């Protein structure tokens, strides 16, 4: 009875037993099989089976610009795919570390890319579930001594089998307060990043300069992140394209004059403080819709057609304060730009 008990319950005795390391699994699966070197491999077939192309296409469709990011994602996908094919013919494939850092200004698509990344990693069977858990400092760092570690662990448990996306990760480290609990959270996360690479992928995101300072102060974190992706700002042309996509989604469209007006608006808006790329575009469009609704309402509803409900006219955009400020030459730094 006793021997039986030991056998069945001792399945995972140590936790960090080296024979259980994920790197070994691939080779142990086919211990004695000898595969000749000229065995044909079907990378294309594997690619098709994984349905990754679908996600890559979606990424291409949904995200305007961001060419370097897209290339990077494709490269990562290729590496994982080749690793999978390698395992299939008995070659060892070390589990790559896929923790990433996304740096870039707000509204450049970091969260969206993280979502797609989770999907791609899931399709390539690198992570088991493919869900994305987005957290900020609040959800990781506790309020009193001994509160942080359990809180962080709770979040990590939720993210197991998926991707943990830590937004504005630099807030975790507060150098000005050495008793801050943030470093405890960093340590807990680091441990999991190192020991459970096959269970979780951690993505840190934030402004570029602040993230760089964060990594300087946390060299451990820096060395464990293999992929640093920098998200470039969108150009005005790209933003216009994004605006088009957003409107299409909501069944609206610009009249040709309105498109020109919006283009002008973007040129002015980019120069203003607090510009946050696609997010600002979304807000601008929301306000344009508001004005359009008002305009239609004031028109008294006479002679309106379905087309009028869908079309945004130049006056909906020209009413923006951005134009008025530009005309009067005031340099206002308020956040509330209408």
């Amino acid at each position, binding site marked *: 009875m*006793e021997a*039986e008990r030991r056998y069945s*319950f001792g399945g995972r005795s140590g936790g960090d037993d080296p024979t259980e390391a994920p790197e070994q699994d691939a080779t142990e699966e086919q211990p004695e099989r000898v595969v000749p070197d000229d065995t044909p491999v079907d990378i294309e077939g594997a690619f098709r089976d994984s349905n990754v192309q679908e996600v890559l296409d979606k990424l291409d469709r949904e995200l305007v610009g961001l060419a370097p990011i897209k290339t990077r994602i494709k490269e990562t996908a290729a590496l994982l795919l080749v690793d999978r094919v390698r395992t299939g013919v008995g070659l060892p494939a070390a589990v790559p570390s896929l923790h990433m850092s996304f740096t870039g200004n707000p509204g450049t698509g970091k969260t969206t890319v993280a979502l797609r990344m989770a999907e791609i990693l899931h399709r390539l069977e690198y992570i088991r579930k493919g*869900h994305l858990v987005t957290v900020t400092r609040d959800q990781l760092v506790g309020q009193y001594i001994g509160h942080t570690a359990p809180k962080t662990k709770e979040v990590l448990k939720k993210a197991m089998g998926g991707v943990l996306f830590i937004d504005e990760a630099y807030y975790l480290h507060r150098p000005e307060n050495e008793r801050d609990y943030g470093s405890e959270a960093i340590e807990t996360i680091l441990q999991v990043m190192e020991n459970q690479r096959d269970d979780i992928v951690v993505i840190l995101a934030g402004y570029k300069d602040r993230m760089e300072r964060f990594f300087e102060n946390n060299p451990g974190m820096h060395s464990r992140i293999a992929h640093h992706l920098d998200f470039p700002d969108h150009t005005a042309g790209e933003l216009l394209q994004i605006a088009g996509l957003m409107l299409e989604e909501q069944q609206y469209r610009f009249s040709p004059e309105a498109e020109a007006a919006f283009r002008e608006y973007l040129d002015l808006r980019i120069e203003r403080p607090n510009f946050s790329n696609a997010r600002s575009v979304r807000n601008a469009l929301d306000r344009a819709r508001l004005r359009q609704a008002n305009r239609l309402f004031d028109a008294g509803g006479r002679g309106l057609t379905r087309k009028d409900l869908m079309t945004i006219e130049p006056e909906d955009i020209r009413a923006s304060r951005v134009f008025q400020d530009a005309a009067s030459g005031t340099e206002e730094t308020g956040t509330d730009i209408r």
Partner: protein
Amino acid sequence: MRITQGTFSFLPELSDEQIKAQIEYALEQGWAVNVEYTDDPHPRNTYWEMWGLPMFDLRDPVGILEEVQDCREAHPNHYIRVSAFDSTRGWETVRLSFIVNRPEHEPGFRLMRQEVDGRKIRYTIESYAVTGKPEGERYGG
């Protein structure tokens, strides 16, 4: 005497792989999984201590298996069970519960007879390990 309770009580002990598969199933059903422990395994004792909080919103069994492992390390000589709670309206109950750890030595239960009026006998069971010892000192733990 090997005490059996809950689901799979008729089977030999589950391996960690099998436990993981069961947890996976519970998570797929949308049940919240808990880890509980006790050193009073009387069948009528439904109130086991909770190990940490119930784990809502989890997607992967690895995190739960880790908690089981932590609990085993902290309480090697306790009974530990994994239970899955279904919050669906109308159910609102534990749907799955199985033992994942037991003490090294289980002395079992003895039958107690109480003579009552009219030479009637009432029966009850009493654990050799539990009786007379406070919590934490039973089962040599």
